[in-house]
C-alpha cells in the first residue's frame, strides 16, 4: 500500500519565481492538506482540499494557491517567491471514513519537498 508521495524531493528557485509542488494521497484518501515547516519550527497549516475545493485556509497570503484533481492528487503553487518561503513543504492525506464518524481526521504525511529560495 503506497503512502503519501510528493515530488520533487528538492527544489531550488530564485526570488520572484513561481513553483509547483505535487502530492499523491494515500490510497483510499480523498482529503489533502498542505503544511509549511520552516527550519527549527513545527509545521504550519497552509490549506486543505476536499472534493476539489479549498475547504479551509491558514494564515498564508494569496501567493499560495492550490488545486485538487479528480483523482484526489493535489498541487501547491507559490508565486513571487520570497527568501522566507524557503522551507520543507509537507502534504498530508486523510480519509472520508473518519469524517463520517464525526471525528477529526488522522492525517498521514508524505516525505516533503525541500524548497530553497535564493
Amino acid at each position, binding site marked *: 500500500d503506497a503512502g*503519501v508521495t510528493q515530488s520533487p524531493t528538492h527544489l531550488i528557485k530564485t526570488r520572484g519565481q513561481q513553483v509547483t509542488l505535487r502530492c499523491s494521497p494515500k490510497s483510499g484518501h480523498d*482529503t489533502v*492538506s498542505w*503544511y509549511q515547516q520552516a527550519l*527549527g*519550527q*513545527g*509545521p*504550519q*497549516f497552509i490549506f*486543505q482540499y476536499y472534493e476539489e475545493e479549498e*475547504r*479551509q485556509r*491558514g494564515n498564508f497570503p494569496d501567493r499560495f494557491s492550490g488545486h485538487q484533481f479528480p483523482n484526489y492528487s493535489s498541487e501547491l503553487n507559490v508565486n513571487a517567491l520570497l527568501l522566507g518561503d524557503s522551507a520543507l513543504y*509537507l502534504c*498530508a492525506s*486523510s480519509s472520508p471514513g473518519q*469524517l463520517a464518524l*464525526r*471525528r*477529526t*481526521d*488522522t*492525517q*498521514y*504525511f*508524505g*516525505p*516533503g519537498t*525541500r524548497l530553497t529560495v535564493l
Partner: protein
Amino acid sequence: AQSVTQPDIHITVSEGASLELRCNYSYGATPYLFWYVQSPGQGLQLLLKYFSGDTLVQGIKGFEAEFKRSQSSFNLRKPSVHWSDAAEYFCAVGASILTGGGNKLTFGTGTQLKVEL
C-alpha cells in the same frame, strides 16, 4: 484559537533510560491530540492519537501518552529509550469537525531528542 506548547526544545537521555516529553495544549472544546516523530530530512510519522475514551493511549514503537484534561496536557512516555528513537517529536492538536474546525492540525515547535549510548 488552538495552540500547543512543547516546553523542552532539546532533551538528552541515555539509552535504556525512561523518557517523558511534555505537551500542553489550548483548545476550547474537546481536543483531538496527536504525537508525530520526524527523523532528519523526513516527513512526519504518526506515533499515537487521542480522540476519546481511555486517557492512556498506546502507540507504535513502545510509546504511550496520557491525556490529562485538568492539566491540559498530553505527555509522551517511553519506559526504555533506544538509540534509534533519536529524532524530533511534535505534539499536535486537531480541531473538531463538530465545532467547524475543519480538521487542521496545529503543531508545537517540537522537542529534539538525543540518545546517548
